[in-house]
């Protein structure tokens, strides 16, 4: 199998690490070679963060480069726009339809781009979901990332059971049920 390239992009603190670890666990359980690359430290403090997951027969480079991503999972729409050019021509862009203003926008030094999702749809295969609102309906706005992951899962070759098993092994024990519900909500959309 050709190496599968996945990127998870978002704002520091949105849970990109948890999501990439679920993906990494899934790939190794399925018997693949896998590499993940994460961001820690200062860059994580509310900044733009990107995590890479690569799996297949034999993975060398731990990062995904421009034009190589099969799937980009974006937890925030400006970050989807920032990294969209990393997608392959036929890649899938999963976007949380959620806006977090970066500081240059907060202080009026820059404008938040308008119609991001509409514009991305003109060039890419976009699958958008307002996961933050969906998560609030489930009673915990912080599990939005599992909803987005559920949407992304439909573009990958793992069974729903495989996903459930690895989620159970990755998230804190007390949060297994809510995370599985969130994943299912995304998967069912």
């Amino acid at each position, binding site marked *: 199998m050709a190496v599968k390239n996945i990127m998870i992009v978002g*704002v*520091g*603190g949105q849970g990109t690490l948890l999501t990439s*670890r679920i993906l*990494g*666990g899934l790939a*190794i359980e399925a018997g693949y*070679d*896998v*590499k*993940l*690359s*994460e*961001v*820690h*430290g*200062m*860059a*994580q*403090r*509310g*900044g*733009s963060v990107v995590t890479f997951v690569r799996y297949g027969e034999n*993975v*060398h*480079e*731990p*990062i995904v*480069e*421009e*034009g*190589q991503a099969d799937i980009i999972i974006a937890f925030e729409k*400006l*970050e989807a*726009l*920032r990294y*969209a*050019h*990393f*997608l392959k021509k036929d890649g899938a862009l999963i976007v949380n339809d959620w806006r*977090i*203003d*970066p*500081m*240059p*926008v*907060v*202080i*009026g*030094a*820059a*404008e*938040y*781009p308008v119609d991001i999702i509409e514009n991305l749809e003109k*060039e890419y295969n976009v699958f958008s979901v307002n996961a*933050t609102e969906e998560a609030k309906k489930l009673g915990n*706005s*912080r599990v939005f990332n599992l909803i987005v992951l559920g949407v992304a899962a439909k573009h990958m070759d793992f069974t729903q059971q495989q996903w459930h098993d690895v989620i159970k092994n990755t998230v804190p024990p007390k949060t297994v049920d809510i995370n599985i519900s969130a994943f299912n909500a995304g998967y069912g959309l």
Partner: protein
Amino acid sequence: MAQLKKVIMLGNEAIARGAYEAGVKVSAAYPGTPSTEISEYLVQYKDSLYCEWSPNEKVAAEVALGASIAGSRAMACMKHVGFNVAADPVYSISYIGVNGGLVFVVADDPGLYSSQNEQDTRMVALAAKLPVLEPSDSAEAKEYTKLAFEISEKYDRPVVLRITTRLAHSQGVVELCEPCTDTDKPYVKNIAKTVMMPGNAKLRHVVVEERNSELAQAADTMAINRVEMADTSIGVITSGIPYQYVKEALPNASVLKLGMVNPLPKQLICDFASKVDKLYIVEELDPVIEQQVKAWGIEATGKEIFSLLGEYSANIIRKAILGEDVDAAQPAQVPGRPPILCPGCPHRSVYHTLKKLGMHAAGDIGCYTLGAVAPLQVVDTTVCMGSSISSLHGMEKAKGREFIKNWVAVIGDSTFMHTGINSLMNMVYNNATGTVLILDNSTTGMTGHQDHAATGKTLMGDATYAIDIPALCRAIGVKNVVTVNAFDTALLEKTIKEEQQKEEVSVIITKAPCVLLTKGKKPFCVVDSEKCKGCGLCLKPGCPAITKQADGTVKIDDTMCTGCGLCESLCHTAAIKLVKEG
């Protein structure tokens, strides 16, 4: 050795596992991205080893040295700039050598994800005459850690395990092994080896050169210096993470992968160079391999086509060596998203107060360095751990008391314990009059919440005495020590004004725990859009949870807000209200 199972591990986690499997008895460290997690992952093996947070890297290196002299395998872990702090002992430990194996794990940060410079540890190791191993993925991180201890003991050399951010923070597949047992050696009194006074050190220097020369000989046949012969039109010498980029970009090229980058295997390199038509050297940061290879008269291409800056990638190598451009869409022009202080961060409240007072701050290393970023922009200087206090002192000595009347030094609690205390002693000793703010959030925040000497808990989770920072300041002679709640902006403003008037050193401790220390649902603020006049006062501290809407009124994102109440205290029209339960 029995193989246990395959797991996926962060590079740092694999180093911790390697240390455990190598039978390490003592590990000491000060947190520093990207090295922090090594110590955090070591804790799980606490039944068979001891690990600690030391107040700084110099102390950590000396703790490890002591353990080694006593006869146990030991290591100290730090980021590249921490290696500078440890440099004083490290250069002389190089002469002493080891009894139990001794390894310094040093993490460089090409691309400056979380650092103040981009220095190359291999240069420091060269100057200190230390062997350097460099793994290229998690599996090697574990194996090289074990090998480092073997080399250390076999050649009587402390060994540097050099990693970079990309290795430290990438996960890869690792095969677990059983730990070594019986690695301990007896202590043998040997003054000539362990007392570095001139007469002894002179003789030890001879040993250092002899042992390094033996190691250089052995390097030619070491398994971790590996030739992968393929198409001979292109040959690449590389090491560490760049090896992975080379394999991705040039799958058919011949590669000499160096697992040990100091000393270099001269014969192996000469042989490899003679077998390929065109030789490239691919190494991030400084041309450490390249300069030595070229000094031997070998023709090679390196920094002529590769940058001295930042990280590499397969695309960069394709472009530089093959002239291939990337086939991808152009990036969109979008506003940047630099790192910022979190919503509810107590530092924001302190900086907002300083800004209101028109103050400048000599800054330090930690989350609070972000006080230099718009809209706060209060921090004028940041250099290294502890430098805020000493540089404020230097300003006063240069320009006088009047000049620093609108200046303070700001330093975090962990950084103060690291090296800030020395600078404060200097202020007292040399009759300074400046004001120091210790932003005490009860943790080492930036690196992900590690304990330190003033938190009351050790790395291994044991309760301990929490050094009393106000008492410590008084003990070294600071007469004016005031503690203020970081969110009490009115009291903080009054206190800063008062302390600035005093003609002696003042320390103001602004206390409030890091907002990320407590998990779970937090209260949040809401805006009454009827009452909001759109004045923008609440936007001034730059809280990312508050945004201005098209109609000029503000909105608070309840998924981000933590209910710190700073914006509520700033609102003149009582439009912002705290909601306790969501």
